[in-house]
């Protein structure tokens, strides 16, 4: 089979992995070398689904020994199979990179023969790229659960990012849909990689020349809607992963039915709006100082699809509002619906020069149609007469109800707001 046919099959097989980020590493070029990494990441194109293309995202092989019900590459699925040789991957990566098509390589694979065998194939590719081709662009590799620690560590010395996909948020889900996997096997290597990263950072303090180890950190992916797991369980898991495993990102992927398995739910369309709400909540956890328990709880386990999670939180905690824009501290500014990190920073730095007016807020990028119910500007309030949360909710949702429902349907039809690199969310 020629490289072109393999690329068709193995790009098709890799596309359901959402991650495509090339950020977080500052690897620099070497003498006679090719490439470097850009800390902010660079998008090189956008595909028809509106997702950013930053890396050459392919599977090494889609011959899998496992039979996970949610996965397109499961052994029982009848589809064309292919395996790249390491040489082919190296050649395509280098030539794409020189033409500035990509920031680097994101290599994943079905489990071929055994986890160790698959990891050894990865090692072969990354070693060739770094040592023979002197390639210093971005490399993201999947760590295969069940592979030996020494193999994972050897790969870690060459790459910028490693990830292990948890896929199903709970062990029960895994038992039902992926009988060959369990959470322990997934979380163990994640913890080991984290420990190695911590060790590297310590050594780096003592010896500047310490070779890099996964400088852009770890990520993982959760499939949304293949099992009955609630949003509350999902964001709790995410919170634990950020805290306990120091993950850089948790990606959420709306389940796209790839088989007729009776254990799987049937959707006409992937649950993209739910995926969007989870991304918004994830942002709130990472950049807005929220805790999972503030956003949802046992009596309230799923996000309101009509309202973004921050608005929802603010309405349930209406006694904190309205806040005075010119006085309130930065952490509380971040909690006002319609104010993002950028506009909060702008407000905080501008306040030193004089009073910030309602008009200024608009020009700073604050979404006033949400924010106005929760703020005062120099004592003046621009919302409705009462601070009754159900009335405000009605106003926010009903403000332009026809428009809102139109947006929802567009959303369902056209897909979410997910890009690999640049995700803009206004929460």
């Amino acid at each position, binding site marked *: 089979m020629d*490289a*072109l046919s393999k*690329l*068709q099959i193995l*790009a*098709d097989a*890799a*596309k359901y992995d959402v991650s495509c980020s090339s950020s977080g590493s500052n690897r*620099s*070029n070497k*003498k*006679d*070398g*090719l*490439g*470097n990494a*850009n800390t*902010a990441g*660079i*998008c*090189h*194109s*956008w*595909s*028809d*689904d*509106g*997702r950013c*293309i*930053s890396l050459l*995202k*392919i599977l090494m092989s889609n011959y899998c020994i496992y039979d996970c019900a949610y996965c397109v590459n499961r052994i029982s699925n009848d589809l064309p199979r292919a395996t790249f040789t390491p040489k082919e991957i190296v050649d*395509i990566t280098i*030539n*794409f990179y*020189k*033409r*500035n*098509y990509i*920031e680097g390589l994101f290599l994943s694979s079905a489990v071929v023969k055994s986890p160790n065998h698959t990891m050894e194939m990865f090692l072969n590719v990354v070693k060739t790229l770094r040592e023979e081709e002197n390639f210093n662009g971005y490399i993201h590799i999947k760590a295969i659960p069940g592979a030996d620690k020494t193999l994972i560590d050897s790969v870690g010395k060459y790459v910028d990012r490693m990830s292990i996909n948890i896929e199903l948020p709970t062990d029960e889900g895994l038992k039902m849909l992926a009988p060959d996997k369990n959470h322990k096997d997934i979380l163990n290597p994640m913890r080991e990689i984290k420990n190695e990263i911590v060790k590297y950072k310590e050594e780096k303090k003592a010896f500047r020349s310490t070779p890099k180890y996964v400088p852009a950190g770890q990520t993982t992916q959760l499939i949304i809607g293949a099992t009955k797991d609630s949003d509350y369980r999902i964001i709790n898991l995410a919170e634990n992963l950020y805290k306990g495993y120091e993950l850089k990102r948790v990606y959420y992927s*709306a389940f*796209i039915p790839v088989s007729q398995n009776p254990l799987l739910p049937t959707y006409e*369309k*992937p649950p*993209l709006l739910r995926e969007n709400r989870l991304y918004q909540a994830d942002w709130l956890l990472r950049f807005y100082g929220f805790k999972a328990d503030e956003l949802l709880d046992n009596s309230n386990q799923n996000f309101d699809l009509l309202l973004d999670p921050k608005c929802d939180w603010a309405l349930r905690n209406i006694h904190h509002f309205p806040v005075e824009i010119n006085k309130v501290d930065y952490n509380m500014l971040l909690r006002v619906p319609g104010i993002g990190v950028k506009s909060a920073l702008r407000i905080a*730095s*501008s306040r*030193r*020069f*004089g009073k*910030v*007016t309602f008009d*200024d807020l608009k*020009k*700073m990028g604050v979404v006033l149609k949400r924010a106005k119910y929760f703020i005062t500007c120099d004592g003046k309030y621009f919302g409705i007469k009462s601070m009754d949360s159900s009335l405000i909710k009605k106003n926010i949702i009903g403000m332009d109800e026809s428009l809102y429902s139109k947006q929802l349907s567009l959303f369902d039809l*056209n*897909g*979410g*707001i997910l*890009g690999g690199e640049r995700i803009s969310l206004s929460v």
Partner: protein
Amino acid sequence: MEKELVYLYDGSFEGLLTCVYEIYYRKDDPKKIIPKECNRFSLIEEYIQIDTDTEKFKKVYESIERKISREFLRTVFYIYLSEEEDSGIIILDYIRTGYKFGRDVLNYQTNPHVRAANEVYRRVSYERHRYLGLLRFKMLEGGVLYATIEPDHNIISMLGGHFSQRMSSEYWIIHDVKRNIAVFYNKEQWIIRSLNESIDLRFDENEQSYQELWKTYYKHISIPNRKNLRQKRAYMPTRYWKHLVEEGVQNNGFNKTNLD
């Protein structure tokens, strides 16, 4: 009727800052500061032509650096590169505000002049960042990599710096076909030269097959159930497609013998 004052300069950054020097010195309040080649004469305007003076340029440059900040100076340079019609006057107002508030002025987001300057700055830096990804090299016979661009703003010098680090052991040319200038890199340093003749391009024998591989990848990495062309165009406006291998079908280099 009093005429509106217009300052004309030679189009260089040095010339622009020389204007700023003269305006301060003469206590003028011009309505426009524009490159003289962009000027269309009008009866209600009065023109002052400024010759570039390196000494005066240096005075303004160094005083901004000292009294405001390097970051501020960089913003001024980006606004100059925007080549937008009112960029001269935006720079003048911005510098005036800068001298008034000093180092802190970058944080003064509610000031209209700071805001106007930041908006232009953002457009230029956003386009620069976009092109770091959207630029496409094609390999010519002999291994030289060649790219064509048509940016809104004059960002080619900023691309030169990026690629001289990333592609330090390749020969490459980035050609701004809108402004007829190009960056040439010879594995040691890069220079900007004017380049207006159409070049006869002969491609490396493998160029087409890598383009085919890329187009195939591009098609297959998209998830059909999530198709969202509106979002794609929001991130990657169609004006950039012409020079993309994956979208610019008409212009992949193989249907034409030379460039427009």
